[in-house]
């Protein structure tokens, strides 16, 4: 029973990570590509780490919670790196499928 739960968690995690990287290859401009890794991977790694927590808690050496640390860290850092990446991309004026708002252009040229 527990095996099934663990297997399900591990497989969901792996599938989400795979979809995240697939998005990196499939989507066709930088700003949309940014969505795949920041979203799909956080959930993927999150569920893998929950699986790891359950697995090691059942080994008899007391409960294991330090996986929360990685999950928390990734949840806090993923938006920060995504924001910096898209800021860098806007700064370099990468091609975008969506039109840029006029706000950015005026601010960037003034600098």
């Amino acid at each position, binding site marked *: 029973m527990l*095996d099934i739960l663990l297997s399900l968690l591990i497989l969901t995690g792996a*599938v989400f990570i795979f979809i*995240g990287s697939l998005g990196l290859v499939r989507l066709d401009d930088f700003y949309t590509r940014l969505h795949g890794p920041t979203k799909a991977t956080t959930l993927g790694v999150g569920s893998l780490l929950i699986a790891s927590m359950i697995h090691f808690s059942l080994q008899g050496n007391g409960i294991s919670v330090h*996986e929360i640390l990685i999950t928390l860290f990734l949840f806090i*850092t993923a938006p920060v790196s995504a924001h*910096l990446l898209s800021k*860098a991309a806007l*700064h370099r004026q990468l091609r975008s499928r969506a039109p840029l708002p006029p706000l950015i252009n005026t601010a960037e040229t003034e600098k």
Partner: protein
Amino acid sequence: MLNFALMIALALVSAAAVLTLWRLVRGPSPPDRILALDTLSVNVIALLVLFGIHLNSALYFEAALLIALLGFVGTVALCKFLLRGDIIE
């Protein structure tokens, strides 16, 4: 059952790492490559966690944590470099 699931998961995550590598090589712009590197570090964290469960050893946790820390710092440093042309101000 668990071992079978672990094998499939390892295969999927490795495939994800290969896709990310393709984007890293292909580019076309520097931010794309940084994004690929960032994603690669997340993939490697997932691989290490899976490996830890597979070998039943908690030792891999520290390595995963270190890669998470270094991956984030690396991404931030590279983005700063693109934004300012300089890392330490």
